[in-house]
């Protein structure tokens, strides 16, 4: 295999006290993609590389990819299923290796073709999940996404027979990017990890996206670690933190400060890997140079941050545990349990328009800047976990959506 196991490389960095930083980066052309990966590798920080797939490939519109490539039109990522395995190997040759693992990020609810393409090119690390890449991003029924992800896990785990150790990251810690309360993010990450394990994956990462309050986030990552230790003790796992995924500060100063807070949060909570955002986030898809600058900024902030410190218990762990336990009680098969949980509204993502999502929950940013439930719908939580909120209007939604942007651009 080329490059060693993604999970083992991250574990070695963590043992050496180094946070692995990683961009989101995808360009259509092989030469530009190789140049981007090379720039990240040579950024002078402990980095992992990313090939982000374009969104035509993500939704399975391979005809649109071919048309765009033929017409020289813009693509917002690397069309890994359209390029040949030889082409992608030439992108990676001499770049991807034991010191520089590369992961494919895609956003697809039905990623079999993408997984086949990355395996054919000698890669073994990717991300997503049957809920996290279905509910927020697709029109695919949850049951179909569960089937597709079971197949994708099997494709990945089959690579073990060829000497590789595939790694799969749950995107469950992001769900809509913002305004999803921490307990539901933690629960979905753990449940997707259990789904991956059931389908043969033994090296995985569980995600959590920075939200609105650093103490609430620290409590959430601690809860994620507690539940992962309880439920996933027989596989290798690490925690990957995402720099804020919601409406981003527009000023370079604000965007940089938010990135630095996420790096500090990663160190504080013992997260082993951080996926960064750039100062271009509010404006457009970042350049390679902007991505490299973000990696350097994040790595420097992490080097100055201190691990540990007190974490107040405001109930995130108890909520996440109640969600996970209630879902697992629905069926012995994790995939069936996930389908039933969405049907019953046990997992109900606020503001998610997917046709299978119950749509009975809501959340908001409270006066202290913490993310709270205002409606818990049919979630298996005590009714008093929802707190009184202002009337739900477009302006009020915009206020919650832009809370972080306004705080950091001030």
């Amino acid at each position: 295999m080329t490059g060693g196991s993604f999970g083992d490389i991250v574990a070695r960095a963590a043992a050496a006290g180094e946070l692995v930083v990683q961009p989101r980066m995808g360009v259509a052309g092989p030469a530009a993609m190789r140049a981007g990966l090379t720039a990240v590798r040579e950024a002078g920080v402990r980095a992992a590389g990313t090939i982000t797939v374009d969104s035509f490939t993500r939704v399975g519109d391979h005809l649109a990819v071919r048309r765009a490539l033929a017409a020289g039109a813009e693509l917002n990522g690397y069309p890994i299923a359209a390029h040949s395995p030889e082409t992608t190997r030439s992108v990676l040759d001499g770049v991807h290796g034991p010191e520089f693992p590369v992961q494919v990020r895609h956003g697809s609810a039905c990623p079999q073709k993408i997984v086949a393409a990355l395996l054919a090119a000698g890669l073994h690390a990717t991300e997503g999940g049957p809920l996290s890449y279905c509910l927020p991003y697709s029109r695919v029924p949850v049951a179909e996404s569960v089937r597709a992800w079971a197949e994708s896990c099997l494709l990945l785990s089959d690579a073990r027979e060829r000497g590789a150790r595939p790694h799969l990251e749950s995107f469950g810690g992001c769900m809509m990017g913002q305004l999803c309360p921490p307990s539901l993010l933690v629960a979905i990450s753990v449940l997707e990890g259990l789904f991956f394990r059931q389908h043969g994956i033994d090296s995985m990462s569980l995600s959590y996206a920075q939200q609105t309050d650093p103490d609430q986030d620290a409590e959430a990552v601690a809860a994620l670690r507690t539940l992962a230790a309880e439920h996933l003790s027989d596989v290798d796992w690490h925690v990957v933190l995402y720099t804020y995924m919601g409406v981003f500060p527009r000023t370079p100063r604000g965007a940089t400060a938010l990135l630095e807070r996420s790096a500090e949060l990663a160190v504080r909570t013992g997260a082993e890997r951080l996926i960064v955002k750039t100062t271009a986030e509010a404006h457009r898809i970042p350049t390679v140079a902007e991505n490299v600058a973000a990696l350097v900024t994040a790595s420097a902030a992490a080097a100055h941050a201190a691990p540990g410190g007190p974490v107040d218990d405001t109930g995130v762990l108890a909520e996440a545990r109640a969600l996970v336990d209630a879902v697992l009680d629905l069926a012995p098969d994790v995939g069936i349990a996930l389908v039933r949980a969405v049907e019953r509204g046990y997992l109900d993502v606020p503001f998610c328009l997917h046709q299978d999502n119950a749509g009975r929950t809501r959340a908001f940013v409270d006066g202290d800047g913490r993310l709270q439930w205002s409606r818990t719908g049919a979630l298996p939580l005590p009714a008093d976990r929802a707190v009184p909120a202002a009337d739900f209007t477009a302006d009020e939604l915009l206020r919650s959506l832009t809370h972080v942007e306004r705080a950091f651009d001030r």
Partner: protein
Amino acid sequence: MELDAARQDTARLDIVVSGLASDAHTWNLVYLQLVLEEMGHRVTNLGACVPDGLLTSTCGQAAPDLVVLSSVNGHGFQDARRVIGPLRARLASTPVVVGGKLGVDGAGGRAAALLAAGFDAVFEDADAITSFRRYVDRLAAGVRS
């Protein structure tokens, strides 16, 4: 999802709000639905990643007073320019507008090409929501621009 915003009885338009085929973003769609409902209009929100065929068939059946397309993933220009032809085949005179971040470079400047392709209005500048509200108000008052 339940969006129980206040509604008025006058000048109520039936509006289809939709993402484009390759765009997974939905906050723009949730927000636009609330904005339009608070202005007193009825909204059918088709959500994210709407394939061209679903968009055209839904609009053809619903015969809305206005179709609002929104995209922020950088493929909007391509997606929008491709779908306006089939949409026009079903809705010859219905106002169809598009807005958001329509290219990968954040530069804007795609309005002329999209207007030429058949859109009635394009909203991609900093004041997009203000000018969008004004456009919808004029439409509700019976003025076609």
